[in-house]
């Protein structure tokens, strides 16, 4: 009886602690959301309201009126699509060859690829800026996409290799015995089986690319090319910040990645650890 009671108390404590952690995790996002839905007078009230008294989309209308936010979203969409598609094609090819053509050099190649991923952005930001400038690609979609394609590759290669490794090699061998070439076996057998892995990897690459800031900051400085993070940062550094529009911008800016993340949750840990943990 006493043991039961003890375990009930422990369980309550456990749920209580989790609830506190959830509150701390979600409150900032909740606060941002409701603030974006408040009218300006309510936003500036000295005693803040926890639920907007009269929710309004006024801040969102204001946001799209004062600044070309649509352009930032378009820029991000173009750069993210170009670089994720390119890195998926190039990286998957590399991953497939690393998974299937066993050679003694593979381990060192994989390790070298991992090392390039460990190089922090700030370490290569100066030479990359000079290289992109020398190519005449500053303030272009091509320049930023090129950098992002290369930066995504280590992740794509490691992830896709772990997915290819899970597909039994016998399936392809059987197809090739039946007269398929390696390429058609890849196309007909391997890629359909690897499709969930391809999707998870691509979604992940979309999130990191969309969120990237340092390179976007130094490689794009015009309204026509700057991505959502740079556009948002620029808005936030104006001398008097319009918090209504700013909170609306933050909500719009985070929506795409939030939705992708929820879609990805099953593969999330695998993505965080480059396929090492599932």
């Amino acid at each position, binding site marked *: 009886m006493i043991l039961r009671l003890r375990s009930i108390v422990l369980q309550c404590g456990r749920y209580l*602690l989790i609830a506190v952690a959830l509150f701390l995790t979600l409150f900032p*996002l909740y606060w941002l959301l409701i603030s974006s839905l408040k009218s300006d007078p309510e*936003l500036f009230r000295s005693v803040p309201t926890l639920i907007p008294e009269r929710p309004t989309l006024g801040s969102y209308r204001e946001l799209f009126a004062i600044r070309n936010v649509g352009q930032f979203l378009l820029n991000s969409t173009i750069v993210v699509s170009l670089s994720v598609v390119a890195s998926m094609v190039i990286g998957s090819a590399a991953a497939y060859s690393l998974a299937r053509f066993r050679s003694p050099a593979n381990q060192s190649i994989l390790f070298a690829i991992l090392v390039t991923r460990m190089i922090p952005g700030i370490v290569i930001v100066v*030479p990359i800026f000079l290289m992109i400038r020398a190519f005449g690609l500053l303030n272009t979609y091509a320049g930023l996409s090129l950098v992002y394609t290369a930066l995504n590759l280590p992740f794509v290669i490691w992830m896709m290799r772990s997915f290819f490794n899970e597909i039994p090699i016998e399936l392809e061998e059987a197809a090739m015995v039946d007269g398929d070439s390696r390429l058609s076996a890849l196309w007909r057998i391997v890629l359909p089986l690897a499709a969930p892995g391809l999707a998870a990897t691509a979604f992940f690459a979309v999130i990191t690319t969309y969120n990237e800031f340092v390179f976007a900051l130094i490689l794009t400085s015009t309204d026509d090319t700057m991505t959502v993070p740079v556009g948002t940062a620029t808005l936030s550094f104006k001398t008097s910040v319009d918090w209504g529009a700013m*909170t609306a911008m933050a909500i719009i800016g985070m929506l795409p990645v939030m939705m992708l993340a929820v879609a990805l949750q099953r593969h999330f840990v695998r993505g965080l*650890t480059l396929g090492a943990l599932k």
Partner: protein
Amino acid sequence: MLAPSLVLLLGVSVIPLLYSARISLLSFRFGNPYKFVGLNNYIHLFRDLGFWHSLGITAVFTVVAVAIEFVLGLCLALLVAGNLRFKGLIRTAFMLPMVVTPVIAGITFRFIFTSDLGIVSYLTRIIFGKQFNFLSTPELALPAVIIVNVWEWTSFMFLVLLAGLHSLPTEPFEAARVDGASPWQIFRDITLPLLKPVILIALLIRTMDAFTTFDSIFILTAGGPGTSTETVSLYVYNTAFQFLQLGYAAAMVLVILVLLVLVSRLFIRLLGDEASAA
């Protein structure tokens, strides 16, 4: 099939680093002709109090933030592991801060901390009778950027450690329970040692990342007030893109890279000991 990947990866690793090494030997400012100055940039760097100051700030930021993230992440993982209602939902909720664009996380917290309409200044007013303006007070700005980093990245520790806990074998735990070990003994003598490789990898990834944090600090304080939150990333950025001393920034970056390599080698050494002991 590997060639395109390897070429692109060289373009964001070896080539920029060699390029940095070359320009670190030049007096290279925008608009001025550059000239060879030998090791002058490095000599200057070792006398540059601003650089050492930023290194100190970075060390405090990294150690404190990663330590808090680890402890909170581990506690949360232990709380959530095992049978739990709504486990999937809870895990998804904890995942959100990590995928929010860091720039937008920075803006969210600038809004929360802002002096005129921030909720933190309101709360400190009613609790302490005195308004705390975290981001504009030198002593409070560093704790504030640490809090934001903890909010963003505790979820990383949590997810990776939770996956680690789930991957542990169940037999040692059952055996210990049969032998009447207390929960604390089980945690200390079984969970922790078995989890150690995952812990080391998670710490390694977070340490490297925290050491070069840029986005959220840039948005929250831009290194200020004064230089109280100027981490090495911001120092490099300001040197290169505000003061346009590219040669000097390149030298700085190479010194930082050496430091990072030394730190990661320490972790890898610990991991290696772990592997050879097992």
